[in-house]
């Protein structure tokens, strides 16, 4: 899950919820889907709360390039 972007995680979470809401998933699968949804939710929140703003400087190598 760590390779997925926030957007991918969020989209999958939405998909999971939409499938569950349609109600055509067998109950056993629904429980598994629910667990996956919980996992996705936690991953999204973790991304949001990951860290403080990071600001890096890229080398100024290009300045005088002709």
């Amino acid at each position, binding site marked *: 899950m760590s390779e997925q972007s926030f957007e991918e995680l969020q989209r999958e979470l939405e998909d999971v919820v939409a499938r569950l809401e349609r*109600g055509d998933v067998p109950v056993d699968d629904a429980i598994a889907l629910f667990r996956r949804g919980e996992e996705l939710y936690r991953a999204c929140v973790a991304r949001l709360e990951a860290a403080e703003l990071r600001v890096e*400087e890229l080398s100024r190598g290009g300045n005088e390039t002709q």
Partner: protein
Amino acid sequence: MKIAPLLYGDRKVYTVSSFNRGVARYLGRLPDVWVEGEVTELRRNQAWANVFCTLKDPRTGATLKVTIARTAYDRLDLSLEEGETVHAHGRAELYEARGELGLRAITIERLGLGGHLLALEQLKRKLAAEGLFAPERKRRLPRVPRAIGVLTGADAAARGDLVSTIGTRFPAARVVVCETRVQGQGAPAAIIAALRGLEAHAEVDVIVVARGGGSFEDLLPFSNEAVVRAVAACAVPVVSAVGHEQDTPLCDLAADVRAATPTAAATLVVPDAGELRAGLDATRKRLEASVRDRLERREQRLSVLSGRLRGSPRLLLERRRAAVDHVGARLQGVSPLATLARGYAIVRASGEALRDASLISPGERIEIELASGSLGARVDEVRP
């Protein structure tokens, strides 16, 4: 003066001086022209009769030596700076002592706003015709970029606004800043190099070009053809926040999104973490609700089913009972007892119900059946 070659047998040979002179004369027949270029290596000395400079073609780097009489130059009162674009009017000239080609200028004009605007307009039309600014080329910005590339000058305000707004909206953001020269000579090349550097960064998913306000000339590098093309060709989406609202440098048109200010650019490149969190929480509620609903519905269905299962024998019994009651009621309806109950009586003679008075004679015995009990009687009189 005739330029005469030396003769070595059949071979005509010219001295360097006579060759240069010949070429110089030939060049001297060329017409006067205007030449545009950037001023470099400007040298003026009170002791010299001429002012020297080199004009450079900013696109290709080609150079041309230009000389102008010092008195003529001083009269123009240009106080030219290196890097400025000028139009020089004159003709080709060969500096004979060194065989160097140059332009002998009669006059030099600084490329004014009008000239710049015209050039800009032409470039804009050309690039638009190529489809560089077409809406269908615009890419959607990533909703949550892994890292945001920021290309900026040594402009503390623009950079500060951008970075602080990003940090406020989305504290988990990662910003990669590339500070570069954004005005004057060499700025276009520096901007392109910076753009390439950010573009090559593995995590940069979007680039913001941020440059605060400045004079028309200050913003010119952002309308430079090579810069505009680099912005359009950038591998990741570009947000252009250059100058103020009223300025429209061409890179604004080539970028995927134009932002009026660095702050506006920040709100475009990162979502609001609070809103995002609220959205996520709402989605999670839906997730829980969907499963709860699911289970509740299943439970409900089960209880309905089991109710039907358990209720069924009683139901059958009731239905039968109702049917029996119905038949009973119909039976009651046709029973003669019900008629007797209303006060009628049945008269029988010799066991047969008597319907006609003429069939019996006085003195005969009859039976009268009432709703309750019966009477034995003898006929006194017959009235047929």
